[in-house]
């Protein structure tokens, strides 16, 4: 792969990665949000594969396939199962409306470009220049986590953060050591399984999965 193709493919996959994250803020249909999350997983797998091919490391390409399977198939499947018992599949009135959310996403993007300047300066390659994009996805995930009120959208927010962090890991240093990457993926998978079971329990106890009901414990 020559340099121009590499940069173009890198930019395209990063663009798709960011776009999927931003669109999560725009949609309120929970099934669509899960589809966007799966799409973002595919963009992440492509991104890692491009980096792996560029560096000629077969291990990284294999890792891309594994991460792709986890994030485009397994995790979205678990999320769809958590959704299945829900009567209404729409986000009830997020705390921040769509227009304001998109503005916030733009501001977060600017903030990330400012914050990541030392990282780009340390090793200015096409890959590290894309780190602000990945970090923006982390912050968008955090924003979804704190402003959305349905259980499934909170899980998606957490997973967007995790996608973003994985992207930062591969863009800066072709990933963390393999043992750590395996452990992290296992932890994320288990966390989502736990949250899926808790969603079912919440539905049994409260009738739905609107997190506004979760306010009995407070001081």
């Amino acid at each position, binding site marked *: 792969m020559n340099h121009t193709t590499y940069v173009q493919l890198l930019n395209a996959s990063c663009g798709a990665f960011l776009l999927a994250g931003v669109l999560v803020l725009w949609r309120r249909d929970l099934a669509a949000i899960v589809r966007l999350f799966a799409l973002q997983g595919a963009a992440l797998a492509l991104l890692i594969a491009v980096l792996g091919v560029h560096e000629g490391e077969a291990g990284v390409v294999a890792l891309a396939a594994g991460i792709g399977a986890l994030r485009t198939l397994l995790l979205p499947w678990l999320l769809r199962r958590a959704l299945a018992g829900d009567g209404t599949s729409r986000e009830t009135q997020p705390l921040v409306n769509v227009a304001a959310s998109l503005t916030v996403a733009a501001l977060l993007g600017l903030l990330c470009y400012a*914050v990541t300047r030392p990282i780009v300066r340390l090793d200015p390659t096409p890959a590290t220049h894309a780190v602000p994009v990945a970090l923006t996805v982390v912050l968008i995930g955090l924003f979804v986590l704190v402003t959305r009120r349905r259980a499934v959208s909170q899980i998606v927010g957490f997973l967007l953060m995790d996608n973003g962090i994985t992207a*930062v890991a591969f863009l*800066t240093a072709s990933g963390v*050591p393999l043992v*750590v990457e395996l452990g*992290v993926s296992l932890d994320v998978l288990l966390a989502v399984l*736990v949250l899926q079971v808790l969603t079912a329990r919440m539905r049994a*106890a409260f009738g739905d999965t609107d997190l506004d009901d*979760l306010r009995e414990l407070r001081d």
Partner: protein
Amino acid sequence: MTLLLIAPIGAPLLAAACQAALGWRRATSWLGAAAAAVLLTCGIALAATGPHAAPGGLLRADALSAFMLIVIGAVALPAMLVSPAHLAAEETSPRDARRYGVLTQAFVAAMALAVLAASLGMLWVAIEATTVVTAFLVGHRRTRNATEAAWKYVVICSAGIALAFLGVVLLHFAAQQAHVPAAGALGWADLAAHAGRLDPDVTRIAVALLVLGFGAKAGLAPLHAWLPDAHGQAPAPVSALMSGALLSVAFYAVLRVKVIADAALGTGFVRTLLLTVALASLALAAALLLGQRDYKRMLAYSSIEHMGLIALGTAIGTRLAMAAVLLHILGHGLAKTVAFLAAGHLQQTAGTSRIGAVRGVAARAPLAAGAFGAAVLALLGFPPFSLFASELAVFRAGFAAGLGWAVAAALALLLAATAAIAAGTARMLLGGPRTGPGAAAVPSRPPLGAAAALLLGLPVCAAVGIGLGPLHGLLLDAAALLGAH
């Protein structure tokens, strides 16, 4: 030698496997206590034999790891001794009891892995694993409140600690750029040895994320919101494990990060960061302790207060302060475990955890009430308990290091928290007995294993407070590892 590194993780996992296969029976219910005893013995043996690493480079133990293993064992042993009686009194179904057995053992194993891991990456994996295995323990009772507490716990801790992972990723990047040997790119020993070569700007971002993220799991402000709910809703032995051991294990990660950060950035950066979160945590705990009506939540806020003190001592960072911090971690673990286990017994006797409802219980459950009172005195820093010695040492070290203003502010906040806890406990233990129906119930006495757990922790805490004995050398070795100057 390698066995000493594997046994603390292997023994609880073996106990978990036995309980998964055979269920929670009369015999298997004591396996957890046996595994905790093995863990404690390995910690002491590691402290005696000195540092070593396992082949393959995944596990590693030095004086600090050995000390943390001793803390985990000292908390897990009483918690596991009380568990059979606790589950029997709750009339837990066999299925739930088996799950409780398996998950508590997996929890202990994950904590042991965290303190024995040789790399920051594995340390992160182990700490996130504790969130996953304890989620169902927090939600054990399956009520609305327990489900709410479990949800908040998993979401806040996972998101908080995800920030720490971003920190790990950035530190890995800085290490790679500085050509730290690839195999040890995340090993904290290699990182600390080559820290001077790390790019300061990137390291600064990474360290801030690591302190914030692991601080969330350690119950430090601003991401502490999960703690009172989780500690209040979990079964008492699990609350004891979480408060006495898990918070300190998460803080152990901050200690390891501090060594790397101090070498790369100088001591000022982490000191400022930790002073901020320490004073914020103390202020928050003091504010929310005033007027607290639930005694398990009162103990939870007291944990935030003590973690704030530990963070303050770490910010001071001299040799005296670091040794005091480690002693405080042990003393808090012992006293808080007894307090939570006694609170659990009182809750089962009175049927509620409201402070106003347990007035007469002191006459019905004298052993538990007495243990609770003594444990609270220990937590408030009264002599002869070791928390008195460690708090005094932290304050002295603070004045000597020129941080008198921070110590003065901490003392004022501590005074408010102490007054609130003392008032609540006095209402519980000294209030007149309840009259009317149900008042003349039979005295409630915990069975032998549980009674031993309640009675043993505090004498140990007092003995450590009076004379350190063999711990003295271990504490100084561990403090020296933390780069104390």
